[in-house]
């Protein structure tokens, strides 16, 4: 059988209610949200165990996309099947979407005013600092051999110098990874 049945069948309303609350407090990245999930799902309500949360993290880390959202979707499925997962994900993201939309409205009306545009210049410089740091952390985690280093450098040059489509670059590098795995299997 391809799929198994979800262990719980909680109502979508209960799931929405719980994850809306978690979404509202979900500041500060993956670690902070995992703590929130543990507190809300295993302590305040005994719906799941810490093993479930660890399992969700282990499997979703391998998938592309935002890990935070994927852990929520995974746990949502455990609580109420497909509709539970959709309810959990939507409720978790809703507060953030509303905040972002309000910021978008403010940005559109205020970005060109003098005070705000110089504040944005400072903000952009700070973002550059954070992104350079992220290059370091992602690089240390994902580049473990000279081949990876080479791929990173080629991608960098191809993107800056030749404006090659970034999706193409990532897919080609991914296929190269599959090929490497395939050769390992043969040998």
């Amino acid at each position, binding site marked *: 059988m391809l799929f*198994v049945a979800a262990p719980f069948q909680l109502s979508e309303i209960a799931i929405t209610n719980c994850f809306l609350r978690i979404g509202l407090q979900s500041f500060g990245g993956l670690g902070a949200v995992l703590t929130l999930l543990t507190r809300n799902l295993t302590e305040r309500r005994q719906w799941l165990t810490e093993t479930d949360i660890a399992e969700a993290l282990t499997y979703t880390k391998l998938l592309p996309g935002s890990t935070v959202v994927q852990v929520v979707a995974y746990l949502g499925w455990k609580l109420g099947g497909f509709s539970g997962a959709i309810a959990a994900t939507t409720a978790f993201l809703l507060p953030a979407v509303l905040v972002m939309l309000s910021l978008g409205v403010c940005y559109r009306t205020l970005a060109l005013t003098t005070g705000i545009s110089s504040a944005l210049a400072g903000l952009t410089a700070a973002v550059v600092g954070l992104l350079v740091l992220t290059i370091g952390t*992602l690089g240390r985690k994902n580049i473990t051999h000279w081949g990876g280093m080479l791929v*990173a450098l080629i*991608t960098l040059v191809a993107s800056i110098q030749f404006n090659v489509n970034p999706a193409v670059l990532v897919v080609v590098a991914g296929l190269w990874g599959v090929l490497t795995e395939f050769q390992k299997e043969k040998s």
Partner: protein
Amino acid sequence: MILLQLFGQFLLIGLLAFGGGQAALPLIERISVAQMGWVSPTAFAAAVAFGYITPGPVLMTATFIGYIAAGFPGAIAATLGVFLAPTLLAIATAAGVERFAQNRWLPAFGRGASPAVVGLLGATAWSLIQSSVTSWQLAVVAILTFTLASKTAIAPGWLLLCGAIVGWVMGILK
């Protein structure tokens, strides 16, 4: 037409973000600033900053960029696009753990793709530096933010706020 483009491109970004939400940031910048020209480099940087400061994943930058590019419907298209595929993949994994856990080709693809994502992040940082770090004061802000974020436990949100305040003060003094 732009709504379909937003949805399609962000769907692709979600599918290719190996290494979590932060891995999607360079893809978002390369596509929505460098390739499609939907938003300015400053708007992208603001989106990233707001993504760090507000609740929810950093990938909420998609909502902001969608809004700037095409208003309210654009925000919905980009948000749906960037979260749809990863959410469905997570649900499929939850419902069929054994099968997915044994699959070795997806992790292999991810291992191959993630160095390319780092390279793209380098390209993103480089183009932001060129377009936005236009004075030595701003360079100091960037270097200080980098140093404080790597050496101390201060939350990125506070550092971004400090950067904005410094920029604002500089604007007054000019």
